[in-house]
């Protein structure tokens, strides 16, 4: 909403007020108001202050909106309205209502503007705070303005031509203050960053202490661990000692026990080594010796008997046997030739048979080949026949003979030819006739049957003609036959020569004529067969002679031995050989028996000798044992043996124990030495149950202690591990250092901001001094009027937050607040300052009414009078509302300033 106004300095005047439920006013309406001064007069609680607020509400709206005390207690809403007139005479009806929300309208002419809770446009350049501070004054407000507000006022005052270019100084300074205050504060107000950092540092220092404690604790734990390690080492050593003792006990005590047993058994076994030669089972040995003695006697008798029998067997070998045995080699030679002789005899028989058979064959074949059969004289020429020569001559003959036969065949062929191939001459004529007649008929008859027959006849004639011509070609055959005859003669001559050659090769054997005329391979085969048979017969005869000679020699040999052996010979040589063989076997058998008997005798002699020695030995052993047993305790031999067995049993036990010890530990010697060593120390190593029990108890204690120590160690290590994960002092120090740096930077930044702020304030002050004297001058002028010239100058202090006045009487500059000026004077100073400021601010804007609520009550009559005069002057330029409960003042103003007095009635009245 904008209210149009083209020119500056528009005077705003309230023409009328009205309320409908507004504080204590209820439904109220003011009279028409003057343009100059209006005095609202009434007793206390008559509504003066409410009207004062009414003006502010009309201009700026409801404040606050919620729970506004201006809403009557018996109503749900408050309403107010006013008629405002500008210097142009235009009227604006402003209506405001507050119920659940603030409503507002402004009507001018036929236009209506929605204000809601916004200020009216007349006061758009003057914030409500400034209006309340400068234009609407109560007695309480007549003091130095609130610092921020004062700055705002100052900014408004100094705006000038650059007002729109720069941020309001109060805002800049305020922002700098805020920023600086957010960083660091000299007091303990708020929580600036420096304090946050300081608190963080403080916390970190506590953490640092903790971390350092932690580090020290870790050092201590490390020391504890080292101590604990030595404790554990001690416990381990102690445990080791206990274990060593227990182990030694467990290891050595059984050995000691066994050694003691060995000692006892050795004592009980006495000088057992003296009886080492006595066997373990001495009783059994003695019994066995007795038994052996008996057996040996029996054996001796048996051996003697055997010797006698053997002597008898020796007599079986006779003198005859000896003769035969003397010729043993020869006889054995003859026996060995028995097979040969027998074979020769059989061969003789076989040869005789074979010769007979061959002679028969020779006769049979001789009859087939030879003229007059076989004769023995043919043997010689037959043997001389050369098989190759006769074969060759036969072959030659056969070849010539073959040629002869072929030539004879040729000749007979030629002869046959000459006799069979001669044709008669009429055959020629007939053939010619047949040909001519046939040809003629065929030409005449054409294709008729007769023509065909004529053709056939003609063909027959041609054939006969050809045959005739052929038979006329045999004129050379006769010459050929003659030549063939001559060749046959030459071949016959050759044939005869070949035949002669064959005869010559047969060496004069009388071959049968037929075979001799036509010799062939069969002749050769027969001749060869005869020749082989002759050979075979001759060979057989030779073998027979050899065999006869050999048999004769054998016979002579056999007979000689028979004679040597004094035997009666047989005729048959083989029987003689058999006899010799039989006799030799018999003699040999006798000799073997003799020899066996001899050996038996020798053996028996040895046996007898051996048995005698054994008997002696048994006797010796028996007596020897008896002698060795003699020193032993006991009356009888049995009791002595019993003593020996006991001693041996103890000795055996001692040995067994020794073996066990050795088996358990091959290095038993060192154990024994160890035991001896401990025993020699005397008392420190007692191998008894009490000591080991004590050691075991100690071991348990050490174990428990060790467990505890290990647990403690584990706990310490865990602790150190956990502590190691804590924050390190260096790390915390680093963070503290960083925060301290940040604090330093923050402090520097704050100092810088504060310095900037001071520079800007100083700039502002200087600028104000140079550019803003008119406000203070005007205020000074008003103060001069009011105080009757006592105070005529007002100064703004360097810090801009206080004022000073100059006492014109003595020239002193007095600080308004610090120099104990009277309350009335202070109120007059501040009032003049506000009036001057208001006038300065509205230089180019709307001229708003001034509103004073009992501001003159503390003034003396002189200054009040002066002020009334001043107000008269002011009200000539703007509307002035003055609220008072003093009737005299109201009518004084009415008289002096021509003020309109609006009397208010007390609501309670």
């Amino acid at each position, binding site marked *: 909403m904008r209210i149009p106004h083209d020119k500056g300095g528009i005077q705003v005047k309230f023409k009328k007020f009205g309320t409908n439920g507004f504080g204590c006013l209820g439904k109220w309406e003011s009279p028409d108001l003057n343009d100059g001064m209006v005095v609202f007069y009434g007793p206390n609680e008559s509504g003066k202050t409410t009207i004062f607020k009414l003006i502010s509400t009309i201009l700026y709206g409801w404040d606050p909106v919620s729970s506004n005390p201006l809403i009557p207690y018996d109503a749900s809403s408050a309403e107010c309205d006013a008629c405002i007139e500008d210097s142009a005479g235009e009227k604006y009806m402003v209506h405001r209502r507050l119920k659940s929300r603030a409503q507002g309208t402004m009507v001018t002419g036929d236009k209506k503007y929605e204000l809601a809770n916004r200020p009216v446009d007349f006061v758009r350049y003057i914030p409500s705070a400034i209006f309340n501070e400068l234009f609407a004054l109560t007695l309480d407000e007549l003091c130095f303005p609130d610092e921020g507000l004062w700055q705002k006022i100052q900014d408004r005052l*100094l705006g*000038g031509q*650059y007002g*729109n*270019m*720069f*941020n309001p*100084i109060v805002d*800049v300074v305020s*922002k*700098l203050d805020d920023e600086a205050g957010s*960083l*660091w504060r*000299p007091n303990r107000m708020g929580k600036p960053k*420096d304090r946050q950092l300081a608190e963080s540092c403080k916390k970190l220092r506590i953490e640092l202490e903790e971390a*350092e404690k932690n*580090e020290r604790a*870790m*050092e201590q734990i*490390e020391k504890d661990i080292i101590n604990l390690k030595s404790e554990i080492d001690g416990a381990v050593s102690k445990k080791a000692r206990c274990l060593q003792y227990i182990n030694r006990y467990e290891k050595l005590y059984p050995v000691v026990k066994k050694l003691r047993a060995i000692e006892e058994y050795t004592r009980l076994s006495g000088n057992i080594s003296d009886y080492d030669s006595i066997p373990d089972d001495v009783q059994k040995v003695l019994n066995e010796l007795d038994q052996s003695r008996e057996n040996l006697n029996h054996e001796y008798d048996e051996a003697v008997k055997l010797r006698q029998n053997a002597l008898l067997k020796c007599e079986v070998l006779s003198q005859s046997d000896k003769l035969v045995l003397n010729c043993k080699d020869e006889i054995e030679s003859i026996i060995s030739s028995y097979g040969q002789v027998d074979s020769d005899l059989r061969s003789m028989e076989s040869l005789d048979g074979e010769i007979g058979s061959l002679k028969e064959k020779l006769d049979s074949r001789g009859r087939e080949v030879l003229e007059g059969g076989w004769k023995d004289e043919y043997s010689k020429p037959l043997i001389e026949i050369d098989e190759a020569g006769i074969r060759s001559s036969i072959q030659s003959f056969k070849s010539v003979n073959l040629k002869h036969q072929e030539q004879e065949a040729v000749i007979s062929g030629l002869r046959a030819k000459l006799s069979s191939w001669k044709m008669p001459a009429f055959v020629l004529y007939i053939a010619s006739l047949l040909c001519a007649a046939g040809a003629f008929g065929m030409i005449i008859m054409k294709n008729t049957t007769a023509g065909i027959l004529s053709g056939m006849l003609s063909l027959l004639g041609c054939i006969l003609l050809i045959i005739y011509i052929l038979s006329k070609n045999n004129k050379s055959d006769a010459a050929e036959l003659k030549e063939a005859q001559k060749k046959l003669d030459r071949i016959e001559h050759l044939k005869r020569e070949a035949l002669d050659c064959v005869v010559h090769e047969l060496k004069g054997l009388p071959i049968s004529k037929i075979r001799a005329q036509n010799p062939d391979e069969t002749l050769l085969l027969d001749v060869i067969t005869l020749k082989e048979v002759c050979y075979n017969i001759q060979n057989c005869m030779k073998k027979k002679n050899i065999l006869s000679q050999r048999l004769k020699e054998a016979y002579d040999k056999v007979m000689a031995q028979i004679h040597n052996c004094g035997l009666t010979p047989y005729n048959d040589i083989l029987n003689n050989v058999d006899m010799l063989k039989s006799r030799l076997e018999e003699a040999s058998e006798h000799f073997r028996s003799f020899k066996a008997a001899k050996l038996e005798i020798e053996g028996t002699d040895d046996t007898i000798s051996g048995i005698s020695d054994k008997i002696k030995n048994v006797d010796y052993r028996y007596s020897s044992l008896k002698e060795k047993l003699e020193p032993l305790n006991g009356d009888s031999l049995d009791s002595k043996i019993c003593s020996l067995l006991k001693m041996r049993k103890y000795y055996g036990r001692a040995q067994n124990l020794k073996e066990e010890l050795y088996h358990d530990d091959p290095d038993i010697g060192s154990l024994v030495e160890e035991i001896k060593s401990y025993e020699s120390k005397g008392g420190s190593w007692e191998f008894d149950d009490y000591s080991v029990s004590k050691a075991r108890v100690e071991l348990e204690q050490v174990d428990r202690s060790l467990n505890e120590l290990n647990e403690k160690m584990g706990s310490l290590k865990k602790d*150190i591990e956990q*502590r*190691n994960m804590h924050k*390190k*002092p*260096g*790390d*915390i*120090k*680093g*963070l*503290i*250092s*960083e*925060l301290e*740096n940040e604090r*330093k930077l*923050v*402090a*520097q930044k*704050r*100092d*810088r901001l*504060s*310095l*900037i*702020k*001071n*520079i*800007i304030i*100083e*700039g*502002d002050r*200087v*600028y104000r001094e*140079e550019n803003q004297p008119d406000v203070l001058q005007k205020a000074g002028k008003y103060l001069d009027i009011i105080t009757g010239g006592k105070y005529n100058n007002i100064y703004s202090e360097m810090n801009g937050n206080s004022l000073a006045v100059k006492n014109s009487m003595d020239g002193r500059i007095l600080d308004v607040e610090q120099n104990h000026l009277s309350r009335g004077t202070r109120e007059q100073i501040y009032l003049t300052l506000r009036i001057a400021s208001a006038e300065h601010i509205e230089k180019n804007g709307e001229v708003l009414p001034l509103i004073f609520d009992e501001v003159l009550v503390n003034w003396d009559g002189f200054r009040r009078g002066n002020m009334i005069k001043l107000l008269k002057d002011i009200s000539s330029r703007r509307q002035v509302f003055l609220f008072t409960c003093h009737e005299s003042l109201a009518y004084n103003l009415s008289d002096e300033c021509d003020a309109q007095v609006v009397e208010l009635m007390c609501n309670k009245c």
Partner: protein
Amino acid sequence: MGFRFVHMADVHLDTPFSSRDEGLRKDLRDKQRQSFENAIKFALSENVDAILIAGDLFDNDMLSFATEKFLQKQMEILDQKGIEVFYAPGNHDPFGDSYCLEGLKWPKNVHIFKKSTPESYTVHDDCGKPVSVIVGAGHEGSREGRNIVSEFPKAEGSVPYIGLIHAFVAGVSGTGEYDRYAPCSMEDLASKDYSYWALGHIHSRMELNRFKPTIVYPGNLMGRNFGEEGIKGIYEVEINDIDDIKAVFHPIPSVCFTTISVGNLKEVKDLSALESLLVKCGDKFSDMRSIGSEIFLRIILKGQCPLYDDILNEENMDYLTETIREALKIKYLEINAENITRKIDLDEYRGGPHILGTVLSIIDKLKYDDDLLLKLSPRDLAIGRGLDDDEKVKYLRSLLEGIDSECASRMIKGASK
């Protein structure tokens, strides 16, 4: 073969690293131990005869349990390899106050100069021939103010003398910011006729004298903040004779802090252009990268910048920081934009008939007018309580940088949105 040793100082183990990032603090602590381990590895690989530690091995007397174990292990490794350790405590780890030095179980190869009275160790070679005399002294308290060097014995004979101490050498440029603990002068050092002075205290590497005697501050082993920038490391020293000394610096891979200022922001149109401009900064620390160190970079943006509001936007700044950090492949990046201002031409306002003109003229006046500065000083300074006027003026004047731009941006409507 002479005497070969490694000279290191100011390891400051368990330094409390300033950062809100717990992971970063831990990482830096680990890196610090790692750099010490790298130095030990170097000594082992070079098979030196000894290691000389010129003080401030620890940052404070409370060594963390883990670091204590780590240190013991390293010393034991050296002991196993037969490398002697000579250690002169400094103001951060004085023997008298140090729980660590008293409480730690040092192996037999570690020789600690427990007192401020100089002690001597003669080092022999394998044949038993003396090859060097190491004279050292430690701080007994955290504020050793005496000139300990003056009490060092003068070198005698033909064996080279080596001085080991944590001391402040007066009159050397670049050491002004350091506390004057165990102060001495170059003349004091030179007067002892030593071959080599193994010093500690100054965290920047300095070769105060190259020859006769060779005087070296190796600097600290790893930068700990942006005040300790550049490549850090140790010296490998070989002394063959009194006059035959070779001292070579060896960088130790660890963490390198470096700061780059970027002021030409007037023409930067948008954040992409700014990103490109800042990524180019990567070229400036390639040497640090080449030794295998991790880079901790701070970029300080200065001057007027049209992207004032964009840069101060926390989200934008986080994005920009992360993007550039990834592009540069570095461990840590901090972009400081506190010194950038809006693009306001203050000259337009200077002398103007308005309040800003007045303010700017006051600021100009404050640059030389101490009284006015004291007059405008905040009544309760957050820093500076207890300062005398001179100190206060100094402090306040340090706050004036860029204050005119800030005043203008705060006062001009729409300039500080």
